């Protein structure tokens, strides 16, 4: 899952980025409201984690503008403003969830997974697809009763495909899900990960749509 993290405090931002990466999220981090708007405009984010007290453009204004533009990216507001009125304002401005600082990294990750699940229309925290059981929280994957060990990138790629079964994702789209900014993308890497996944889950699990991209079948 690719996440846009908007946090002006460098210590907090850095730790959040690192912690979320440890949790298997692909994280891009910006430090002010304008940068957040630019990033979300041409970005491919599954979720935005938004601090409210931002320089250059307030977090709430960013959020309102985002919703006015029809952007439906789930937004989790993370802020030190804890008054009930603040939370109400935040949620009414279009936030999907609200977390008050200081918070626990695991809770943040869990809430992010919950938002993503909701956006994908799922209620089961575990994704079941045919013989595959995919658990985003524990990062455990079981295929036909056998645990499958996946690398972080393989996991992220599979997660992206499972998020919308049946939909075809291009190589570029998959790259975007797997790599954050500043991460070196080697050519053919998507193909390499697909190859590895097919070896672990069977050749037919990920289907190739020639000239377009990859998908997992809609009805397993």
């Amino acid at each position, binding site marked *: 899952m690719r996440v846009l993290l908007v946090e*002006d*405090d*460098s*210590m*907090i931002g*850095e*730790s*959040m980025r*690192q*912690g979320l990466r*440890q949790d298997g999220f692909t994280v891009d981090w910006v*430090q*002010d409201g304008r940068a957040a708007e630019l990033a979300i405009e041409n970005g491919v984010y599954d979720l935005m984690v938004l601090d409210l007290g*931002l*320089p*250059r453009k307030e977090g709430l204004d960013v959020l309102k503008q985002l919703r006015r533009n029809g952007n439906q990216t789930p937004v989790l507001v993370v802020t*030190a*403003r804890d008054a009930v009125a603040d939370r109400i304002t935040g949620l009414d401005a279009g936030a999907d969830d609200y977390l008050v*600082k*200081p*918070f*626990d*990294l*695991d809770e943040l990750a869990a809430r992010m997974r919950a938002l993503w699940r909701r956006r994908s229309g799922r209620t089961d925290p575990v994704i079941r697809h045919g013989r595959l059981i995919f658990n985003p929280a524990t990062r455990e994957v079981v295929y036909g009763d056998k645990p499958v060990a996946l690398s972080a990138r393989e996991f992220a790629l599979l997660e992206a495909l499972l998020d919308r079964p049946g939909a075809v994702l291009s190589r570029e789209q998959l790259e975007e899900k797997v790599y954050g900014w500043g991460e070196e993308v080697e050519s053919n890497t998507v193909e390499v990960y697909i190859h590895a996944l097919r070896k672990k889950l069977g050749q037919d699990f990920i289907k190739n749509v020639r000239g377009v991209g990859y998908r997992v079948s809609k009805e397993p």
Partner: protein
Amino acid sequence: MKSIRRQLLLWLLVGLTVATAAGAFAVYVRARAEARELSDYQLQVMAAAFPNNGFGPATAPAHDESNIGDVVVVQIWDQNGGRLYLSSPESPPQSAEIGFSTVTTPQGSWRIYSTVIGNNVVQVSQPMSMREKLAADLALRTILPLLLLLPVLAAMIWVTVGRGLRPLDEVAFAVGKRSADALEPLPESSLPQEVQPLIAALNDLLARLGRSLSLQRSFIADAAHELRTPLTAVSLQLQVAERASTEAERAAAFSKLKGGIERATRLVEQLLTLARSEPAAVEQPFTMVSLTEVARQVVAERASIAEARRLDLGLSGNTPLQILGDAEALRVMLGNLVDNAINYTPPGGTVDVEPAVDRGQACLIVTDTGPGIPAEERERVFDRFYRRAAAGESGSGLGLAIVRKIAQQHGARIELGAGGGGRGLKVTVRFSGQLAAQ
């Protein structure tokens, strides 16, 4: 303990007693004068009542039937000096004078009236003590009711004073049952005039307390709010460290955690400084302070930090400047400004501190070659906890709030501008009208 009630009672009773005694004495004096006049008249009338003649030789009478004998003694002499009559067994003193006279004997004073009736001399005498007794009786009868009334008066005073002081009890009760943070004014309307100044003063104090309390509260709220940021950072850094899978990753995480803790510590220290400079805090009395000396100290204390950051930190100009102020506070203020300059100026830059006189006003000027502050942000940087977006350094956001507070205490204004050649930042602390004669 001093009691208004007891004091009032005591002094009112003392006053009343003295007044009664004085009254009684006046009555006594007056009554004595009147008794004297009246008795003299009686003596005269009595003497005149004797016949012109017809008294036989002196014979001691059988005891007089009237008790007038106790108080009046009548003697009659013939023209030869032979006593014709004596009304009492003991003879009173004699007076040779015709008319009234007073004769003092070892047994007491007598008032004597002598007159000549026919050929005889009639002398009527009366002891003076009798008159005194009459006057004393009269005086006593006058003041007796007053004396009997004294306890009644005392009781009335006690009750009335108690009732008069009851509003004080009510105020005490009202204040006593208040919770510590109930600072609304006490009602003044139904109170006696004498208590109102006290209540008004109390209300004034309550209002001032309230203001100071709400200042403190908002400060604490701000502070608690802002402590969240470094605490969030620390708790996240800790979690990242816990999750680290390699030794190198863990070491990096711990080093960041250390940075986070240092920042939290700095914030707490700055908060303390700010709390000390709040208006409610005790202010140091102003003394003559040499700004040049303050600048020299501040620069000297930071020389090694500046060197470590490869900054050229120095004092320029040596105008001797003295103002009335709090030396310690001014050191903190200038120290914050210089720290900011050091933190924001990239290596190789210059930080300049200059005490100067500009337009007749004492100024402290700190110039750096850092990134400066855009005009639109120059007001906001003074807000508590405001940290600039571009700030790579993780400050507490309190430094300039402290600077402003101290400047305000000294009646100084702070001007932000660009440094030399439009680059960097120039901070001028302008002390208005406090420039002392050099």
